């Protein structure tokens, strides 16, 4: 039976879908240019290095990818950046820890150097035959484990401390003010969000009875993504790292969801994967592998969605700014003219990104909750199918986003 509230929810969901489609089409329209720039960049790196002009592709890749230093301003030899600690484990040499400024501008330290943001063993000069050197270097490339505190790791640690500080102080406010007083300040800002995750995400998708157990995970995921999305929009340190647009971060988040789903999955869930009731055995031979792929595919899509949305947002903002300098190189007037348009568009994109920051956090949390809900669902059939249908529907809607 669709209650009124769920109908309403569906309405808001469709609205979100429309917004999402709109955002996505904007992304697609504008993502074309930087992508091309990126391609030309990677294909002809040498050419780009020789060219002494503005290179948008290089700028964008640098901003959205991880780094061993935190670049502040300046280019090339005059670049000013915050050095970050490098922690590497070399299977041959063991652990070594040093600051990244020892490797800046292509310097070699302790037998290591930075090559396209990767730490590799430097070729030792004067070690006889080429074959041996090549062998050694390929070996050590494979054997270096990089646990450095990179830009993204620092941003991650910063956001972790920020979250701990934010929510322990909110918790303290709750303890101080007790249950009889209305929330105030930061507490009253967070409460609607917490209630939103609890009532609209957890209760709806997992069910009134069992949602409480998963609340800590859902809240942590929601606020982790939301806060880091917002921090990613802040252009200055400690914001500006493309953390939630990093594939490793998204992957870990998705794997956490997968683990939670697999741990809480009940017999009913497994039975539906390995032996869907009412399905003949020959069909099961096809269905079961599909279902098994589905189990892994869902978190995979979660990962890709978050990664692509956030990264695309960063690329677009940077592409708009790059346009100013590309035209500026042609003539100052063109640069200024484009600057007006670019800034306006970037402001517009900034607002869209604010929406996307919330939307992606919401979508990730909602889908996690739906997967958990599906995993712990008890099997009374009539109702079951209804629910499954509902889940599939909302999943399809969200997939458009």
């Amino acid at each position: 039976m669709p209650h009124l509230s769920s109908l309403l929810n569906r309405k808001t969901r469709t609205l979100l879908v429309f917004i999402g489609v709109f955002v996505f089409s904007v992304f697609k329209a504008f993502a074309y240019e930087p992508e091309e720039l990126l391609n030309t960049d990677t294909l002809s790196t040498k050419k780009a290095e020789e060219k002494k002009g503005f290179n948008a592709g290089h700028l964008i890749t640098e901003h959205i990818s991880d780094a061993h230093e935190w670049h502040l301003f300046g280019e090339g030899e005059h670049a000013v950046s915050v050095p970050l600690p490098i922690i590497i484990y070399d299977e041959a040499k063991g652990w070594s820890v040093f600051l990244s400024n020892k490797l800046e501008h292509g310097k070699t330290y302790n037998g290591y150097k930075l090559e396209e943001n990767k730490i590799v063993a430097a070729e030792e000069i004067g070690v006889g035959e080429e074959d041996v050197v090549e062998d050694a270097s390929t070996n050590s490339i494979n054997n270096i484990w990089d646990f450095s505190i990179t830009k993204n790791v620092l941003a991650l640690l910063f956001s972790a401390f920020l979250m701990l500080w934010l929510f322990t102080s909110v918790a303290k406010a709750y303890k101080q003010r007790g249950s009889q007083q209305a929330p105030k300040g930061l507490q009253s800002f967070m409460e609607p969000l917490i209630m939103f995750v609890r009532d609209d995400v957890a209760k709806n998708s997992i069910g009134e009875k069992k949602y409480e157990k998963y609340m800590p995970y859902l809240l942590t995921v929601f606020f982790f993504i939301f806060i880091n999305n917002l921090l990613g929009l802040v252009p200055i340190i400690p914001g500006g790292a493309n953390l939630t647009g990093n594939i490793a971060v998204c992957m870990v988040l998705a794997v956490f969801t997968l683990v939670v789903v697999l741990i809480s999955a009940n017999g009913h869930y497994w039975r539906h994967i390995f032996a869907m009731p009412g399905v003949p055995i020959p069909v099961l031979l096809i269905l079961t592998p599909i279902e098994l792929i589905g189990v892994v595919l869902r978190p995979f899509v979660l990962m890709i969605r978050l990664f692509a949305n956030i990264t695309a947002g960063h690329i677009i903002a940077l592409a708009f700014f790059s346009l100013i300098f590309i035209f500026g190189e042609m003539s100052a007037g063109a640069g200024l003219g484009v600057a007006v348009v670019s800034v306006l568009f970037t402001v517009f994109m900034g607002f869209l990104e604010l929406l996307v920051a919330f939307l992606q956090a919401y979508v990730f949390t909602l889908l996690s909750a739906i997967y958990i809900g599906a995993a712990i669902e008890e099997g009374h059939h009539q109702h079951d199918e209804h629910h499954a249908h509902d889940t599939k529907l909302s999943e399809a809607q969200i997939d458009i986003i």
Partner: protein
Amino acid sequence: MELVKPDIGLIFWMVVTFSIILLLLKKFAWKPILNMIKERETSIDNALKSAEQARKDMQSLKSSNEKILAEARNERESMLKEARDTKEAIINEAKAKAKSEAERMIAQAREAINSEKMAAISELKTQVATLSIDIAEKILKEQLSSDEKQKIVTGSLVQEVTLN
């Protein structure tokens, strides 16, 4: 491409950091916050319920008040009615008594008048009798004063007797 290749170092730090914030926030933030929110919700719930109860109580109190008031009004009414009745009864009784008294007195007076009248009449009768006798005596004396006159009387008397 570099962008879609997950970096082992970042994965490691992410797993460590995320696990730690998950555990710490669970213990120090989400549990107390969610508990407090729930507590507040139940207390608001209870407050609403008790307000509703109070409203109902009030209503029943009001209706019982009205009932009492109505009863009092009825009581007053009946008391007033009784008083009026009593008054009426007393007045009626008094009237009746007065009437009967008056009647009694009138009867008495009438009796007294009657007896007085009787006495007067009998006295009058005696007086008249004496007077009549005196008059008859005088007449007789006069009529029989001479012989002639005695003869006339006796003659008429004798005549009357024979005629019968």
